[in-house]
Structure formats: structure tokens, C-alpha cells
């Protein structure tokens, strides 16, 4: 706090020096009048950071067995999404959004997630020609933390990561709880509840810019008639508002009460047996959530199972993916029941993921309230690799920028609208996203607060 005052004085002094000998007047920063004597008033109001993460599971659901749509954007989770029931109020469910390929070949278990996460359907298998949305978010908010983003996979294979800048630049997944812990909380970790603080020079530049504009405004007011003064006054107030925000960011952050690092985990078995995956997923999820609470990163990606999921049950050779194609539809039940078992496990893992963020108190709510999780899969109906109506969910309120607990029926709109909505909520300065038929400039405003 004292720092702020000192710094401000220094800046003023510096400007005087610069203008020595000229008649140019430099306005005092507006912030002087909004600070109390000790400067604590602003610090107390500093907003908590808003974080972004993705969560992926392969092979979707048996269509129609996950969700029942109700009136007024309400919904009910059905059998295959039962584990999510306790978190319904934190979730938005997006159904009926399509992935048009524009005549490009359907690369099975690839075109779906690539389209959804990059907005561009691949021409060739394995080709990723646009960044995944988490990378675009990290480009905006990732620079402020120790890790630009964290990528974790519970399948035991570091190649299992759906975070790419392009085909040649994949953010490989961290797969072992032990090495993830070492990376996060081992050497190099600085406890936010102590230590030194250096302000961001870019903030000072923004302050100077606004100071200039304040002067311009005073000149401008002289030219404008009395009738329009009120409108100019509002402009003036608006400038001061942004100055105020910048000043908040120039202060040493509050200690992060929610940041309490757990003990290092025991070595665990890695692999793609469902039981193993669920255990590793849960341990690494909890670690990841704490890293987020400690502001080590604001962007993270967790992959529970791949699009071509190799997950399998102990003692059985059929993997989840093979089952989707080979298991006959049960004539009595009307769906593939073994596939359904896997789908429910996926949602149990997702429930674990949500629980980890919801379990950490932060400010007046939980870490989940200041987070936006984008959860997606690669197909609507794995049996036929259907790309229409691939389900997506978002979880969390993104610091109040998102409404939750809603079902949004896409009615065939492009799936990129969901990604664009998430990116807009994360304040990514992106106007349109996606290419060809998947290009969109229309976020889903219903879920935006």
C-alpha cells in the first residue's frame, strides 16, 4: 500500500522531469482522490483472478441417456450423467450444437474434438491448424502466473493432451501424480502468502495513457455546448473507473487464504485400467485445483480419457472404444449397456473434478465460482461417430461472468459458439472464431451474466 503512494509520487516526479522547460501540464492521476490514507480500501476490493480449464472425456454418451431437457433452460441429468446431479447448479449443458465439416473427411475420433476446440475441421488426420481454445485463453491470462497453463492426463500417456497451438506444438500432458507435485510445489514454488512483489510496468503505461486522455478530455469539454456536458462528464467518470482498476492491480496482492499445499503423494500405478485412471485422475485433480488456488496457473487442461478411449475394465480386453462399435444394442434396454457403464465412470471422474474446485473456499464462495471449466467429448454417438449434437458442458461461474444451471439447445448451430462463449467469458479479445461453416461471431448470450 505504501508502495502505491510512493510509486505514484515517483511517476509524477518523473513526468515533471520529462516536461521540464515545456508548457505542457500533466494531470495528476485520478487515483489520488480514491485512496484512503493507508491505501487499504482499494486493496480490499481487489478481484480474485478468473481461471479457465478444460476437461475431456472420450466417446460421449449413449444419445438420450444423459439429459432430459425441461422448460426455461432447465434440465435433468439422466442415468449416464447421474454422478453430476449434485453439481447441476454449477453446470451448463449445451446440446444440439453441430460440427459441420464442409466436405472435409470425417477423421473419426479426431475431427470432433479438433473442431470443437480449435474451430477448424482438420483436412488431414492428425492435422491441427488452429490453436485450441485453452491456448487462446492462456495467451490472454496465462502470462500473469508461474505456469502459463498446466496440462494433465490421467491415462498414463503424455501424448494424451488436447492442448495445441498447432500440429507441431502440443502441450504434453503430465501423467504422474508424483512428478506433477514436484513440478507444482517442489523447488521454484513461491508461497503467495509471503515474498517480494514487483508491479507490472505495463500497468504504469496504461496509467500514463489515461492521464493523457484526461487532459484531452478537459480540452474537449471547452469546445462542447452545455447541453452535452453531462454526456462528457460520464465519459470522464468512465476514464477514472478504469484508472481505478489499474491501480488495484498495481498493489501487492492479498495473501491467498485458500492456498494450502497438501503433502506430496505416494507413488501410484499408471495405466489405462478404469480403476487406475479414476484414482490418478482424482489425486492429480486435487493437486491441480490447489495449484490454481495458489495462483500458480490460471489455465489448465485435464484429459480423463482419449477420444479413442483405451480405458478398459480390469480383466477384460474390450476397450471402451471397441465396445462402442461392437457391442450390440441391447434389445430390451435399447442401448449399449457395457458402453453405458464406461460413460457413467467418465461422469464420476468429472464429478471428482468439479468437487475438487468446489471444495476450496475462496472469497465469499469457492474456487469453482472463480473458474470456468469447458468439458467436452468427441462424438454424440460413438457407434456411428456422429458429429452432430456433440455434448459440451461448462462448469463454474467464471467470477460471475457466467450464469449456470442452464441447458442450452443448439438446434444445430455450430459448436464453436460454445467455445467462443467461453473465450468471451475469459475476455479473450476474439471477434470471430472458427473457419468455414464453423466460423462464428455469436456467443451464447443466455449463459453470459
Amino acid at each position, binding site marked *: 500500500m505504501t508502495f502505491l503512494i510512493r510509486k505514484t509520487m515517483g511517476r509524477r516526479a518523473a513526468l515533471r522531469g520529462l516536461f521540464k522547460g515545456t508548457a505542457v501540464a500533466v494531470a495528476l492521476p485520478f487515483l489520488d482522490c480514491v485512496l484512503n490514507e493507508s491505501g487499504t480500501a482499494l486493496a480490499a476490493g481487489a478481484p480474485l483472478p478468473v481461471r479457465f480449464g478444460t476437461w475431456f472425456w472420450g466417446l460421449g454418451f449413449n444419445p438420450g441417456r444423459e439429459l432430459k431437457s425441461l422448460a426455461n433452460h432447465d434440465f435433468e441429468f439422466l442415468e449416464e450423467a447421474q454422478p453430476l446431479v449434485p453439481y447441476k447448479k454449477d453446470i451448463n449443458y449445451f446440446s444440439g450444437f453441430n460440427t459441420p465439416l464442409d466436405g472435409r473427411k470425417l477423421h473419426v475420433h479426431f475431427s470432433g474434438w479438433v473442431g470443437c476446440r480449435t474451430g477448424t475441421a482438420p483436412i488431414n488426420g492428425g492435422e491441427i491448424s488452429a490453436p485450441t481454445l485453452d491456448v487462446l485463453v492462456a495467451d490472454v491470462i496465462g502470462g500473469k502466473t508461474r505456469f502459463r497453463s498446466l496440462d494433465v492426463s490421467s491415462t498414463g500417456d503424455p501424448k494424451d493432451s488436447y492442448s495445441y497451438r498447432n500440429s507441431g506444438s502440443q502441450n504434453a500432458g503430465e501423467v504422474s501424480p508424483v512428478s506433477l507435485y514436484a513440478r507444482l510445489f517442489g523447488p521454484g514454488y513461491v508461497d503467495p502468502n509471503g515474498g517480494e512483489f514487483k508491479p507490472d510496468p505495463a500497468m504504469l503505461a496504461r496509467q500514463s*495513457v489515461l492521464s493523457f486522455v484526461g487532459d484531452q478530455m478537459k480540452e474537449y469539454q471547452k469546445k462542447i455546448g452545455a447541453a452535452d456536458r453531462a454526456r462528457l462528464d460520464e465519459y470522464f467518470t468512465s476514464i477514472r473507473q478504469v484508472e481505478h482498476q489499474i491501480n488495484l492491480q498495481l498493489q501487492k496482492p492479498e495473501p491467498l487464504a485458500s492456498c494450502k499445499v497438501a503433502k506430496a503423494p505416494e507413488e501410484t500405478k499408471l495405466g489405462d485400467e478404469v480403476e487406475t485412471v479414476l484414482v490418478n485422475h482424482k489425486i492429480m485433480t486435487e493437486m491441480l485445483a490447489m495449484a490454481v488456488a495458489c495462483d500458480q496457473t490460471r489455465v489448465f487442461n485435464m484429459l480423463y480419457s482419449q477420444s479413442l478411449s483405451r480405458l478398459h475394465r480390469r480383466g477384460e480386453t474390450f476397450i471402451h472404444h471397441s465396445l462402442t462399435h461392437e457391442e450390440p444394442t441391447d434389445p430390451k434396454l435399447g442401448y449399449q449397456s457395457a458402453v453405458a457403464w464406461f460413460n457413467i465412470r467418465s461422469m464420476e471422474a468429472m464429478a471428482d473434478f468439479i468437487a475438487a474446485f468446489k471444495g476450496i473456499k475462496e472469497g465469499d464462495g469457492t474456487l469453482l465460482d472463480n473458474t470456468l471449466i469447458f468439458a467436452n467429448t468427441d462424438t454424440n454417438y460413438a457407434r456411428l461417430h456422429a458429429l452432430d449434437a456433440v455434448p459440451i458442458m461448462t462448469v463454474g461461474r467464471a467470477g460471475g461472468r457466467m450464469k449456470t444451471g442452464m441447458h442450452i439447445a443448439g438446434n444445430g448451430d455450430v459448436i464453436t459458439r460454445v467455445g467462443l462463449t467461453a473465450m468471451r467469458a475469459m475476455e479473450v479479445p476474439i471477434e470471430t472464431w472458427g473457419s468455414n461453416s464453423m466460423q462464428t461471431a455469436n456467443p451464447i448470450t443466455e449463459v453470459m451474466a
Partner: protein
Amino acid sequence: MLRHLVSIVAISVALIGCGPGEPKTAGAPAGFRQLSEAQYRNIVADVFGPDIQIAGAFAPIPRTDGLMAVGSGRVAVTPSAFERYEKLARFVAAQVVNADNRPMLVPCAPAQGAVDEACARAFYAKTGRLLYRRPLTDAERDHLVALTSQVAKAGTFDDGLAAGVSAMLVAPDFLLIGDVIETDKSGAQRMTDYSKASRLSFFLWNAGPDDALLTAAEKGELASHAGLTKQAERMLQSPRVEAGVRALFSDMLMLEGAATLQKDPVIYPAFGMAASFDASEQTLRTIVDLMLTRDGNYRDLFTTRQTFLTRTLGVIYEVPVQKSLGWVPYTFPENDPHVGIQSYASLLALNSHPGRSSVTLRGKAVRELLLCQKVPDPPANVDFTLVSDSANPDFKTARQRVSAHSSDPSCAGCHKLMDPIGLSLENFDGAGQFRTVENGVTIDPSGELDGVAFQNPIQLGKALHDNTSATQCVVSRAFAYAAGRAPARDERQYVDYLHKRFADNGYRLKELLKDIATSDGLYAVGPGSPATRPQAAADAAKERS
């Protein structure tokens, strides 16, 4: 009467040297307008190149007197709007100094750690003049250079330049289009030449003045009718006038609604977002083609069969489209009811409900958008159940349903203005698709407009073509769009004068735009304007002729 007229002419010629016959107007107080999103984009593209991305949402501008161009003179820069502008400014500024754009935009590259003040000064002089639509003052330039140096200290020279660009992009001189007033030799108030240049340029190009126009302003050429005419003619010949005409008609026809238009996907499966955007673009292309490319008669907009289609629109109109990507010219055949922009999908779909057509909304749109006639709002306690109930066996068609309007005297007064027009468009469903039956009953598309009865939508087009209100409407809207305010009551004669000339010129839009752009009425400032610019008297002293 005749003498009166003659005297007006005499005064006009004597006092202001304008086109013959223009009635003098009192003008309105000077004010300022906020840049529209399109104007912001156009200016940034003009100053920093078309590759600069503009990402971010702009605060919406409300429509006043039928136009956002008028509403922009009422709206304030709110904190959230400014926050967006500030963020956007940094985003643009960072692109200006990035490796792709910097070489073309910044005239120097000082060594690491160095600050080239002369270079910064030149950079700001050039870009600032285009952004502020006037030369920067020495003080402004000094201030920007100082800002640059200060920021460069903690970073790089380019960081400093980016800060300067950011600063200009959030300054009122950029974001607001203000009318600056000065006093002429006779002591009368008038708009400065730079303000005139802005008004002219935003009107014809929907963008800021280019170098040539600013130079003309600098030389004082815009003070004379001849100088103004020369610039207006130059600008009307430029391809950039298309952007201006598009902006004018998008605003006038409320086509921005296409971006949020939602149709029921079960009832109108073919009308998705792509169709909505294409339909709006079709209308604009039709207008640009008739008004600019062919320099045609404005009245033919209501009867034209010549348009442009995409494959998506081909599905809506149920006609073949030769190309699967892009636009193809298309002429509806003689027996096709799609005649005139009022029968094309955009206006029909925009003025319908999500799941059905609307006789009333369409009638209202024709009255308000095409004829500039205000239809009063409905009474608050009106009961819509009857009009909506298509399950009622007695109400299979819209005609049967809206007959309830005429039987209720509280409705009849206004609905007789709207319904007979809307009924003649009932051959087009809520997505603008052709139909001849509704709920199994053949639609009777007969109707009436201002005493002219017609049997079908083709004849409605003819009635609109022949209706004087249609051409008066575009005259009044174009003036309001240019001036940022609707014509005042005492400007009636001036508008009539413009309309008369429009008629004499075969209702060619370019002639109308030129007449407005070169009229004194567009630049007149009236009582209530602020105190004159401190320098105005001095400027006036070294006055150009």
C-alpha cells in the same frame, strides 16, 4: 407567394452562395456523436491498414427517430463502454507496432533502448491527423511524445508508440464526432471546415475524412459551395461510397437485427443464422446494385426482380443457384411474386415472429421504415389470444385472424394503416418463403395502401413505387443520417426542396446524396451552440475569401 420564394432565393445566394433555391434553415445546436462500430473499424483500417484486427464487443447504440445515426448523438460513453474501448485500443496499438505492421506504419527503428523523438512526432502528426480528423496541436504532439518517452523508459520505444496510439484511440477527439463552432467575419457562428469535412465523410463513406478532404479543409476550400461540391463529387465517384450507402440503408431498414434473428427450427428449418445474414446481405446488394452500379431510380427498389443469391438463399426461395460458394446475380422470373426489397427474405423475416408471419409487423415496417410514417403503439391492455389462435377453425388464415382488429374500435384506427399492407405479403411465411395456403386455406393476398387497392404482392410493389411518401422518406432519412438529427419542423421547406430535386433527377440516390452533402442545411448550426472556439476569430481574420 412567388415574391416570397424569389426573396428566399436571393437571400440564400447572397448570404451563403449555395445551390440555387435552397431554403435557408436555422440549423440545430452543435453537438457530438459517438463513433459507430463500423466507423471505428473503417477509420482504424484507413489509418493503420486493413490487417488490423478489431476484436471485442462494442456497446450498442440505441435508435432514435428511426436511426442509430441519430441515437449516436444521445449516447454516453459508459464505464463499461470505456473499458471496452481501452482494451480494444491496447489491442489495436499492439498490432500497430508488431512485426507485421510496424514497417509500414512507423517511419523509423531506433536502436535498442533509444527514443527517436522526431520520429515519434512525425508518426503522431500523420496518424493523429487522421484519427482526430484535424491536425494535432503542438501541445498535443508534445504531450504524446512525452508519453512515448516515459513509457519507453520502462520498456521499448515501440511500447511508447503503442501507448501513444492507445491514448489517441480512447481520446474524445477520436471516439466522438464533435461539431466545432467558430465565428465568421460577420460574427455569425458556423461549423469549422474540419467539422464539415467529418460530417461529409461520415455521411458518404461512413469513415473519417481522407488526406485530400482534410487538405481541402486546411486550405479553407470547404467554405465555398464550389469547394464542397468538388469534394462531394470526388467522394461520390469513389468506390468507398458503397460503404456509406450500405451503412445508410442498414440503419434505415434496421438490418442489424439479422445478427440476432432466431426462427423456430422446426417450423422454418431452412432459415438458420447463415440464411439470416445472407438475406440481409441480399437486400444490401440489391440496393447497391440498383442505386450505385446502375444509378437507377429509387422507386424501382420496390419493383426490382434483379437481385443476388447464395446457395443458402436458394433453399429459402426454392430456386436454383449456379454456384455453391459466394453470390450469383439472379433475376426472378416474370411469374414470381418476389418483387422488390419488401418481398425479399430479410425484411419479411425480420418483421415476423419466430414461428409465423406477422401482418401487423410487416405493415408497420412498411409504414415506418419505407414510408417514414409513425404508427402509434398498441394499447397496453390489448388481448392477443384471438389473433394468435390458428387452431380456431374460424381463423385459419391471417386475414381471418386480423379481422378481429377491425371489429374492435380501439384497434381498428391503427390497424387499418398496417394490416392491409401486411396482408398482401401473406404469400410469404415467417421466413420469407413463398406459400399459397395457410392451414389448408388459400391465402388471399389482396390489400390496400393509401387508397390504392391491389390483389397481390407484385401489385403492392407497384403501389409503393408510385407512393410519394417512399421517396420523401428516403430524403428525410438520408438528411437525418448525415446530420445526426431528424429534420426540424421548420426545415420542411428545405426537405421539400431536396425532394423536388430528387424527383427532377429521376430519383437517383447519388444525386440526392450530393444535394444533401453540398447543401448549407447540412452544416447549419443554430442557437444554443457553445461559445466559439478561442482561435476562431483569429482564423476568421486571416479568412479565405
